[in-house]
């Protein structure tokens, strides 16, 4: 059964950096575990990631706005652009961040 977010100080999620996102931000592994305090939203996770990996900002934002060709999926579901603050996360969630590739 999936854990709920109630009565916890933090949740732990896995973030996978695909495409060329991992390059040059000081990560050894493509997948990292991240602890997230409230609010447990995707928006907050992105802010935490930017603090953890300062060079990431340059890779995912332009003029402080997320790049339009960024693909973010939670447990395999693409998250609609502009809804990151509404997407709630739970312990064990797998978040994939990638650039939208051409793939063909």
């Amino acid at each position: 059964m999936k854990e709920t977010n109630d009565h916890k100080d933090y949740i732990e999620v896995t973030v996978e950096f695909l495409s060329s996102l991992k390059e040059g931000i000081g990560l050894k592994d493509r997948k990292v575990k991240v602890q997230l305090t409230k609010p447990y939203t995707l928006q907050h996770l992105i802010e935490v990631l930017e603090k953890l990996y300062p060079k990431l900002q340059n890779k995912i934002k332009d003029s402080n706005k997320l790049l339009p060709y960024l693909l973010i999926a939670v447990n395999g579901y693409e998250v609609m652009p502009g809804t990151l603050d509404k997407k709630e996360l739970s312990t064990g969630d797998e978040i994939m961040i990638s650039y939208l590739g051409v793939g063909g």
Partner: protein
Amino acid sequence: MTKYSGYCGKFLRVNLSKGIITEEELPGKVIEKYIGANGLGAYYLYKETEKGVDPLGENNKLILFTGPLTGTIFPSSPKIGIFSKSPLTGGFMDSYAGGHFGAELKFAGYDGMIVEGKSEKPVYIWINNGEVELRDAAEYWGKSTTETREAIKKEVNDDLIRIAVIGPAGEKMVHYACIMVDGTHAAGRGGLGAVMGSKKLKAIAIRGTKNSIKVADEEKTNEIVESIFEEVRTNKVMSETLPTFGTTTATLANNSTGILGTRNWQTEVFENAEDISHIALKEQLFEKTLSCFQCPVRCVHYCKIKEGEYKGLETMKPQYETVYSLGSLCGINDPKVIAKANYICNEAGIDTISAGVSIAFVMECFEKGILTEKELEGIEARFGNGKAVIALLEKVVAKEGIGEFISLGTKRMSEKLGKGTEKFAIHVKGLELAGHSIRGYKGMSLGYAVSNRGGSHQDMRHIPERSGQFDRRSIEGKEQLVVDITSTTVIRDTFTYCAMVEGVIGRVGLTEKHVNIINAVCGFDFDLEELKTIATRILNLERCFNIREGMDRKDDTIPGRFMTEPIPEGPSKGMYTPKEELDEMLDKFYKLRGWDENGIPLQETIKELGLDDIVKDKDLRS
């Protein structure tokens, strides 16, 4: 000579039966209606071939056209479009190749060429600026694409010529034989290499140094070009991902969202995807990047296998589509096997997508006991068996025994086998499916179904659904999305800019950006509505070609597996497109397009688009 810039204003007509080569003017009226590559290919193929023409017979034509952007300062627009009636689908086929061949043809003075008839003996076409001749190619017949290219360079004593060539697969008319261009690119889809082989045309070689291609409004063109260069420089996909990994990053991204074709699409999660990821390929294969004419992206990778059984083998790319078709789809988790298979395809001149999908079909037949080891001449064609993939490919190239059977492609193989195999024969209209899930994107279900060439990912594009901008799990509004995206891709293939930069120019629907580009380069005075009409005209003309060949709604379908078997596992588990859903989307789409319920363009649609000069009522109603 045309008044419009971006053109040479003439093309070549090469009659191989008579050995006659002539130059023809590209009429201004045709340019205004069809603009370039895709448009001109559709126009001349429709006009100059008869209903029911044998794709591999003397009366089929092989048509090559560049677009007005090719050879200009406009970036990333190197494509040559090649058109014919396909031996694989029996319908309209267009396939585009990058490299430098298209630009070289224009520098030699020609916008394109129409090859007709059939030579008695192997020949190649040698275009040396304005001088064109047929040369004997008997000594190159049977040689690989690289051997032939190198030998022709030696013969004409010029290392810098550009060459389109077929390999042994094209000579033997394997139904999915391709045309290799410049050694780095392929006009891969639909068996155009087999058409070339049927005409005994081994190669087309070009030296073009005398002609330069002017643009109409230099200032405006420069402004647009600079903005595109700036976008390429700052866009992470184009400045980082594509030069580092090509398109292979799609493997893991697709796998982690549960839409990576695996073991003939029995599932869409590949447990060994990590082994064939972009990172694995980069480490084990990639050596250096190359680029097409006037392209700052440099997405082409020259590869060398660094260790193991195939150590030292050199080949181009493979890109994502090949990693899918010869990798996950066949259950292969070794980049070196994929590279070796890619090498065989490139040297023999076979489309890697159709080859991989055909072999995956054979593997599923083998595992289900429909094809036995004896019938497969001792090859244990289990998913994951790399040696089997290589052995089967070699048989296809030789077109002997079981290889002859596999060379027919999945549609014909399943028709011959019966036993319910049509359900998992993964093709649309006979063209094997590219690596973008039908079940995982509702828009792609419709887009593939109505694509004029069949299972191509270059008509409908998956990316707008991929981004989450359009919900890939819903059929809502997908008929309009397919109309908008295919209007854009047909214009992309008409102008001839590369699919890799379509994100910069615009993917969903034509915009003023498209209008500004073509007006600045050519000196047209189009407005947006006119450009939309041109896109619709070209798509309808391709459609009419298929209708004339007997296609209609029954052919606008997807493989049975995708209509009846939900994705069994992973994040996209449960997704599929039942027939009722597809029918609902088709009905709405036909209405938007101005077609009847059987998918046939209405007379008023034909008239409105100005196609009634070549499309006759009897072509559509017989």
